[in-house]
């Protein structure tokens, strides 16, 4: 298989971005007669924060679902870490190092915050059921080792005080944060965030922005995020893909995209031909 290594680049704030981590090639996704995504190609480079923006119903979430293996596109190829990805179940995609959060929070409501975040580490936990049943020895050791990692993430996201709280009791903003913690627990290569700041107040948005930047900075995690708040997108992202009605209408650094006439039209609701 051909290995694609394209040149990276250096961002405005001096971070070095590596070669291509993921590439979507000519993706088309249909639901019956509805075309959710039409022939879209873009890439995500190692270490960057890539935003996907666009009006409601543009197909952004569908694109993330294609990346996580939840939707199978009718046409196109997904390349990850230099290899074409064969058709895969979502859990296999997760095992490859792709973690995500959801537009509508998808936490395990019956479990505590700690258990939710621990669940995020399941790909790192290898003891079998018999070892688990005995517990003493391998299983307990593994549990403690993984708990240490999880506690670091809990500290990092400042949710220490709620670690034993059942998730169902948390307010919305904290749930979003716990969901991020669960995704981070997997120590993913690529982190997908579907509207991480939707429905938050200004203060919560600032916190969340800081966490996203810190994750990228401290762990070197590549991030692809969907966001509606243009201010946030301009602040956070290195490059932006703009979608409208399932088509890609712009791709580039935030400043460039902001001045793109098609993008302005899409956001101002200029009539489509």
């Amino acid at each position, binding site marked *: 298989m051909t290995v694609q290594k394209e040149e990276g680049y250096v961002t405005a704030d001096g971070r070095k971005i590596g070669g291509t981590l993921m590439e979507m090639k000519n993706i088309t996704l249909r639901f019956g007669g509805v075309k959710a995504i039409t022939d879209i190609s873009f890439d995500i480079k190692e270490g960057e924060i890539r935003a996907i923006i666009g009006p409601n119903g543009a197909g952004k979430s569908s694109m993330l679902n294609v990346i996580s293996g939840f939707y199978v596109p009718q046409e196109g190829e997904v390349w990850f870490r230099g290899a074409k990805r064969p058709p895969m179940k979502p*859990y296999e995609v997760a095992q490859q190092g792709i973690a995500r959060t959801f537009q509508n929070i998808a936490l395990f*409501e019956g479990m505590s915050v700690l258990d939710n975040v621990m*669940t995020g*580490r399941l790909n790192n936990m290898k003891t079998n059921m018999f070892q688990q049943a005995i517990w003493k020895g391998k299983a307990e050791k593994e549990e403690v080792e993984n708990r240490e990692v999880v506690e670091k993430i809990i500290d990092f996201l400042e949710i220490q005080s709620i670690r034993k709280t059942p998730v169902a009791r948390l307010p919305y903003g904290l749930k979003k944060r716990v969901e991020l913690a669960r995704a981070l627990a997997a120590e993913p290569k690529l982190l997908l965030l579907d509207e991480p700041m939707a429905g938050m107040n200004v203060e919560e948005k600032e916190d969340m922005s800081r966490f996203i930047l810190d994750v990228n900075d401290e762990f070197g995690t590549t991030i692809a995020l969907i966001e509606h708040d243009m201010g946030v997108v301009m602040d956070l992202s290195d490059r932006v893909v703009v979608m409208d009605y399932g088509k890609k209408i712009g791709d580039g650094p935030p400043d460039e995209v902001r001045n793109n006439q098609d993008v302005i039209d899409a956001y101002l609701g200029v009539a489509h031909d």
Partner: protein
Amino acid sequence: MFYREAGDFKTSYVDDNQTFPIKFDRYRYYFVLLFAFLVVPFVINDYWVNAVFMPFLIYSIAAIGLNILVGYCGQVSLGTGGFMAVGAYACYKLMTAFPEVNIFFHVLLAGGVTAVVGVLFGLPSLRIKGFYLAVATLAAQFFLVWLFNKVPWFYNYSASGQISSPERTVFGYAVTGPHTSAWATYLFCLVFVVLCAVIARNLTRGTVGRKWMAIRDMDIAAEIIGVDPLRSKLSAFAVSSFFIGISGALFFSVYLGAVEVGEAFGINKSFLVLFMIIIGGLGSIFGSFAGAAFLVLLPVLLKNVLVSGLGWPTDLAAHLEFMIVGGLIITFLIAEPHGLAQLWRVAKEKLRLWPFPH
């Protein structure tokens, strides 16, 4: 002795992961164990063992098993009676085919056989959920009972169509057959209960249990973070059936001694165990015990108080029992899906921080 968390600081994650993180709970647990093993066997008699202790212990195992499937993994099952029958018949066939092997292993193996059967009947769970899965397990229930009635090989071609357990001993003491003593059968069952409870607790506190609960709470999200739904569900079916098989084996060999499958392991049994975990608490090992104790004790209590004490007719007392159980099920389903275990937990939570709730 005070029930409290204040001042009882955890200095390692092992400590924090304990089954009973609070000292008082831990002591009470050791106390119950000691009492069960060292005191009860000396004071127990035939009436108590047959009316209360043995059914309580055996149903506890079944309830733990069903709770793993329903309460932890969220897969509804109405096949408990059928799976208990698999355990009973497997145990019977093993006992009669290999009389020289200790019955302890027969019971364990019967659990193993039931686990395999459980996995087979669990296969549809990948495609169907909720109500439809319940109907599929109901089909399993009826099919299994029919099978054990229809195929004479299962009951060794006995004229009555029943199976009856021959005498088997452990360390020279009879635990099955007509010449058992109360304490021996009690201890034999108790060992299995402790074993099953410990295994269940270990599985549910680790990554296997978190996978089950993830599937229960939101299967799509579980899959997207890396849970293989098929393996996870089938492992729940396997473990659950293992326990239920053990309980069926004990129910037949130690408790009843002779069994007619439709009567002992009919659909009523499936509902009884389901009611136990609903009343006791879904997703709780302690709740499995609480529910089993409640539904075993209730009829005994009603009979002693109403029939023997107040002279009510037996059928009236039985009807009252139905009404109480029915009413409780509705109450718990609507008001407190986590059952008695949750009421207990709330009470403890209040106590735990007392006298400084903030």
